[in-house]
């Protein structure tokens, strides 16, 4: 049983690699078969689409599968046990890091928030986790890596973690416990430790968890990826070079705050936004502005505020939003100034 699963996984990995390394040939062939001249606008757009979309989806399938396996080692319960009673500082760093690898869905944000506080995870540390988990995730990082290269993906990882750590520490310092809703406050530190022993899993079970994760995530985001790449392809093919440099370029100081504001009401996942971002960059938009926009879309969303309102009083929500927004602004400005 076990051997069969492992062989199948190895074969799938080889097939994946072959497909991934032959994408350029595939895309050229498709454009030729369609009878479109690659030098025209339409040819450029079509070539971009048939190259980028399978590439990104293949990458996603691979990484999300691996993350599904990693998730079988890092459950939210285990993360909570690791963070319980940690001090500000080291606790925030750990929380942000664990936020990247722990399975998280924004629909569980409230039970998770309460569960952390109950087990004695400090408020500031809990916030570091809650900021990092949705913002720095495998889907965002994979798309950035696939479309913009490892440097941009690495920067996004580092800066996302930086914002989560700093914002959580600041919120912790401010001692905002009084602005939790009263029923949440009453539950704080109420939970006795112990239990939560994860059932041991066999490798076939872990591999199945990886496949399940693929089905769940890639099955959900692929239409966004295709739509995003299609819009990106249109921009690539038809928008003139440097068209955006004027109002999204480095020289426009107001572009960063405008990008953050624009991002708040937008609620999209990384999958839809990154292909568009890549096209904007290619047409002269500044990296800092574009990264700030992305972070804002993912980390600050109106629906999430409404969910969090159940556990936080308005003042704490306001502090949360302003601290995170300030962090993102800083990221945008620093990037534009340095690069």
């Amino acid at each position, binding site marked *: 049983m076990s051997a069969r699963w492992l062989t199948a996984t190895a074969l799938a990995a080889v097939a994946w690699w072959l497909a991934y390394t032959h994408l350029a040939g595939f895309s050229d062939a498709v454009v030729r078969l369609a009878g479109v001249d690659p030098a025209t606008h339409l040819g450029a757009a079509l070539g971009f689409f048939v190259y980028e979309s399978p590439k990104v989806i293949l990458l996603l399938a691979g990484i999300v599968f691996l993350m599904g396996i990693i998730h079988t080692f890092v*459950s*939210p*319960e285990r993360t*909570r046990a690791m963070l319980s009673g940690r001090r500000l500082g080291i606790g925030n760093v750990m929380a942000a890091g664990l936020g990247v690898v722990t*399975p*998280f*869905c924004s*629909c*569980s944000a*409230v*039970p*998770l928030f*309460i*569960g*952390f506080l*109950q087990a004695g995870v400090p408020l500031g540390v809990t916030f570091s986790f809650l900021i990092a988990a949705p913002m720095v995730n495998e889907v965002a990082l994979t798309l950035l890596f696939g479309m913009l290269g490892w440097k941009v993906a690495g920067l996004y990882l580092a800066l996302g973690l930086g914002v989560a750590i700093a914002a959580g520490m600041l919120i912790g310092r401010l001692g905002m416990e009084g602005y939790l809703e009263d*029923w949440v406050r009453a*539950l704080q530190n109420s*939970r006795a430790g112990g239990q939560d022993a994860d059932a041991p899993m066999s490798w076939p079970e872990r591999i199945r968890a990886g496949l*399940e994760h693929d089905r*769940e995530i890639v099955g959900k985001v692929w239409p966004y990826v295709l739509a995003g790449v299609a819009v990106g392809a249109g921009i690539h093919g038809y928008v003139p070079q440097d068209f955006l440099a004027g109002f999204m370029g480095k020289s426009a100081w107001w572009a960063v705050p405008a990008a953050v504001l624009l991002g708040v009401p937008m609620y999209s996942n990384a999958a839809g936004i990154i292909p568009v971002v890549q096209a904007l960059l290619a047409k002269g938009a500044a990296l800092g502005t574009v990264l700030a926009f992305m972070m804002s879309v993912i980390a600050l969303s109106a629906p999430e505020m409404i969910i969090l309102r*159940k*556990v936080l009083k308005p003042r704490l929500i306001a502090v949360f939003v302003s601290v995170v927004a300030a962090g993102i602004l800083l990221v945008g400005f620093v990037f534009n100034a340095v690069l």
Partner: protein
Amino acid sequence: MKNIKVLGAGCANCKATLKLIEDVAKAQGVEVQLEKVDDMVAIAGYGILSTPGVVVDGKVVHSGGVPSREKITGWL
């Protein structure tokens, strides 16, 4: 008769879990009393960290993700 509660506020996986339990119970010919709990305070009270959670006769048996068919059969 077993009392089964599905904890979760309107996420896609919560609905899928509810439906799956219904299906399995029907296939097995077991009668269950199925409830959906979507009040955050109540969900937090069960001490789960990720939804959907499943409570069988007052005991939390599952949290996070849609449970497998085999697991559900085990509960019934």
